[in-house]
């Protein structure tokens, strides 16, 4: 029996929530923050936002009686946001100050450096063994 209290409880619809999140992402105020005023200077923070979601479902084979043996469905999503720049409005004019994320750059440099080190090291090892590098060997080593 459904009581009045239960009937009035809000229904949770994950798909609807995710879709409404996507619609909100497309609005301008999600990327541009509220202007902050300090004396003669006004700053508008700007950020980048990315939202993605996916879902899928599948069913198992049909048995001798014609019944589905199993099935399932799932979904997932994620959102990412980061500051990009700040618009600074002063008496002299308007300028855009970029936001430099040093941590991300250092991490990317370290990853790329490690990748380069491994491949250049392999190249030298190939040279030493007398076998010149080739694209087929390069492809094989990527696959392995």
């Amino acid at each position, binding site marked *: 029996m459904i009581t009045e209290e239960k009937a009035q409880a809000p229904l949770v619809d994950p798909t609807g929530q995710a*879709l409404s999140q*996507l619609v909100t*992402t*497309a*609005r*301008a*105020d*999600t*990327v*541009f923050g509220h*202007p902050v005023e300090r004396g003669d200077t*006004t700053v*508008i923070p*700007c*950020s*980048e*936002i*990315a*939202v*993605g*979601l*996916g*879902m*899928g479902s599948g069913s198992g084979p049909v048995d001798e009686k014609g019944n589905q043996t199993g099935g399932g469905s799932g979904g997932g999503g994620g959102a990412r946001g*980061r500051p*990009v*720049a700040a*618009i600074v*409005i002063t*008496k002299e*004019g*308007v*300028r*855009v100050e*970029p*936001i*430099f*994320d040093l941590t*991300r*750059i250092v991490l*990317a*440099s370290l990853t*790329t*450096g490690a*990748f*380069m080190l491994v*491949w*250049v090291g392999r*190249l030298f090892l190939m040279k030493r063994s007398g076998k*010149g*590098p*080739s*694209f087929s060997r*390069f492809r094989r080593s990527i696959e392995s």
Partner: protein
Amino acid sequence: MLRQLKAPVLQISETRGNPVETFSRQTTPIGRVVRVQLPFGSFTWHRPVAVEVRQGETVHRLPIYDTTSRAISAIVLTGLATVLLPFVIRTILSRRRKHHDNRGKSTSTFS
């Protein structure tokens, strides 16, 4: 028969933030939305692209650059080029060498 309208897979649109009026200037931030809609999912990417400054009759458009993304792309591309270039150069050289060797062999059999 009811016919459903199909939404486009890729949608690119421009958004405009609230204009800010200061020192007889109107500043409007402009963003860009890239939306990919597939039957099994959806992706939305919204980023700032420019600022429109209107002063009287003149309108200036200042671009907003994402320096962090540019720097990361440059680092990754440099790394890939450093790894791939020696492979490409050596492959071209070894192919040329093979081609020359085959030519030498063929001329020796005919003479």
